[in-house]
């Protein structure tokens, strides 16, 4: 079965520093990977996705993610963190090629950016 793992419950970073939120995946076949963000008292918002092509995917709010097939990872990155980036981040993978609309989510990583 497809799955994603987010090994860190929380990531702390100072404003202006680069940030990385980790995600590893386990899939059969080609992975379809996603990042979503949840701000306080809000639903989840789509950030970016990897389907095929370049290993570095750019998304909303200056975020990018690097797909690494050999390490089965899809880490979320940003060169310079903002306090407003503080939120809950979820990695997700498409369930199976036949169930295009089902996403399997990780457990989430809370990002805290301190001023």
């Amino acid at each position, binding site marked *: 079965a497809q799955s994603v793992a987010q090994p860190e419950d929380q990531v702390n970073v100072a404003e202006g520093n680069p940030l990385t939120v980790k995600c590893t995946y386990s899939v059969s076949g080609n992975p379809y990977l996603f990042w*979503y963000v949840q701000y306080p008292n809000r*639903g989840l918002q789509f950030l970016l996705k990897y389907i095929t092509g370049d290993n570095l995917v750019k998304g909303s709010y200056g975020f990018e993610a690097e797909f690494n097939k050999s390490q089965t990872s899809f880490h979320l990155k940003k060169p310079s963190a903002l306090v407003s980036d503080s939120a809950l981040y979820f990695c997700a993978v498409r369930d199976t090629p036949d169930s295009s609309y089902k996403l399997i989510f990780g457990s989430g990583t809370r990002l805290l950016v301190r001023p």
Partner: protein
Amino acid sequence: DVKVTQSSRYLVKRTGEKVFLECVQDMDHENMFWYRQDPGLGLRLIYFSYDVKMKEKGDIPEGYSVSREKKERFSLILESASTNQTSMYLCASVTGGADYEKLFFGSGTQLSVL
């Protein structure tokens, strides 16, 4: 912008009550989903629907049912609420077109079962 509206932000119910959570989307999306969100567990899929009157079980359907009589509305029903169903419930919808993985989520309903 797509809007997914969940009828209640907070809900408090008693064990054994029948509970209805309503979700409405305004972008004519074919596919709709109900997830529950629990700390440390992420989002888990309860049910989804890819068309009117169609439904499929997700990963944790026990104790829940759904109804989709109209394309824009997807209801989650807790037949007899129990304390272990205290959770944040998130509704989502997505089109069947090119951005079919870009789910749009509602703001969530925090349900407490006492």
